[in-house]
């Protein structure tokens, strides 16, 4: 299982990366893309939307099912990745390169409270 050490994770299988400017980039884990199968459609949040941690903000649809994506942190959506939306299969080939959206966090402590790679790997393995 591919679980990079430099990222944080939510139990609901999103990854989060803290960038140098304090924004947080979010995508879905390699485990999640594998469970979903071939991804064919992404519905991403509008820029400017203010979200709470745990709120449904995006949808990933594979050939077989739709899956809700939750924001791991609270804050404002400052970017949605149209390149990924235009090529949804890139999430299958590169789950950690194909980010979905960026959040300007309102409560940075939420990021620190997310799972680290080792803890997330255990969650994913137990499924």
């Amino acid at each position, binding site marked *: 299982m591919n679980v990079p050490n430099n990222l944080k994770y939510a139990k609901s299988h999103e990854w989060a990366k803290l960038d140098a400017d304090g924004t947080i980039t979010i995508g879905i884990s390699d485990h999640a893309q594998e469970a979903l*199968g*071939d991804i*064919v*459609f992404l*519905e991403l949040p509008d820029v400017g939307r203010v979200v709470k941690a745990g709120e449904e903000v995006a*949808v990933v*649809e594979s*050939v*077989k*099912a*739709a899956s809700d994506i939750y924001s791991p942190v609270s804050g404002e959506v400052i970017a949605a990745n149209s390149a990924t939306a235009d090529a949804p*299969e890139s999430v299958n080939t590169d789950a950690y390169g194909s980010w979905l959206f960026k959040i300007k966090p309102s409560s940075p402590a939420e990021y620190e409270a997310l799972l680290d790679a080792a803890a997330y790997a255990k969650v994913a393995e137990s499924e």
Partner: protein
Amino acid sequence: MTATQTQRTPLYDTHVAAGAKIVDFAGWDMPIHYGSQLEEHHTVRRDAGMFDVSHMLAIDLVGNDAQRWLRHLLANDVAKLTLPGKALYSCMLQDDAGVIDDLIVYFFTPQQYRIVVNAGTAEKDLAWMQKQSAGFDIQLTPRRDLAMIAVQGPNARDKFWAAFPASKAVSESLAVFQAAQWNEWLIARTGYTGEDGFEITLPSLVAARTWLALQTVGVAPIGLGARDTLRLEAGMNLYGQDMDESVGPLESGLGWTVDFKDAARNFIGRKKLEAQNPARKFVGLLLLDRGVMRSHQKVVTPHGAGETTSGSFSPSLNQSIALARVPAAVVIGDEVAVEIRDKQLKAKVVKPNFVRHGKSLLQEKSS
């Protein structure tokens, strides 16, 4: 979890060894895909793939009244089968015309047939058949000793013959929906994908060996995931999803399989069907907006609401398609709305078949 024991086909170990992702389908541990469902779909449209369909049940029927009984039991008329090996697709109906199952019946002689039914309905079907057999000289034998492998795709037959050259003599001249016996195998030119190919019924003992021989000549294993997108593109109904006991064949796009021609043939469900004026019809939907339709989504039309019965992303058309039951006044070409996660997305009503033999059947591709 109080799961009942799932069943396994003779090819289960072969699937696991090939890295298949296994899911519970109708009580059976079946491969959903072996890596990429999309690639498997395209392989069948462009080359050749094989499916383990051993979960379906073959039932042998013999007896002096076999033909008379089937003409009573089934909505389609087996009397039109006169060539040995010829097959017929039919619904088996309740008295109220609800669909108990859809099945294929193969004719050998008027005293000898084989019926192939769905996995999830097999026990229910057998019970119904036994119940309807009173007063008829027939015998039913479920053949759980048999496995079934479907080889499908434009190159399926050639690759099958490459693996089993000796079978070519009996199978080369088969018309569509016709089968031939080859030793202990039944080779049928049927399928559930909209592509050419064979469905092979064979002894379970040789299933794994046969599967591997086909793989050696370049037939790729295909999971049930791609089987579903292939049959949906081909506009083929899935029992339990597109129709069941609560709905009749005329509202399920299966009117063409109901044969009323012989007025003296009083098949089960006939009276009810003749009294019916269907309020709903079965159509295809092509999603014009971006998204993916799924089953049981509401369809909003100027004539009232309908419902999608099957929906998915179509790998061949690269957009979402669905089968739907809508008010009878809706016509091909209408624009309707499908409710997906509290949004109404635009869809076009089309004939319920989208792709055949690798080609789109849509007149113009909408973007």
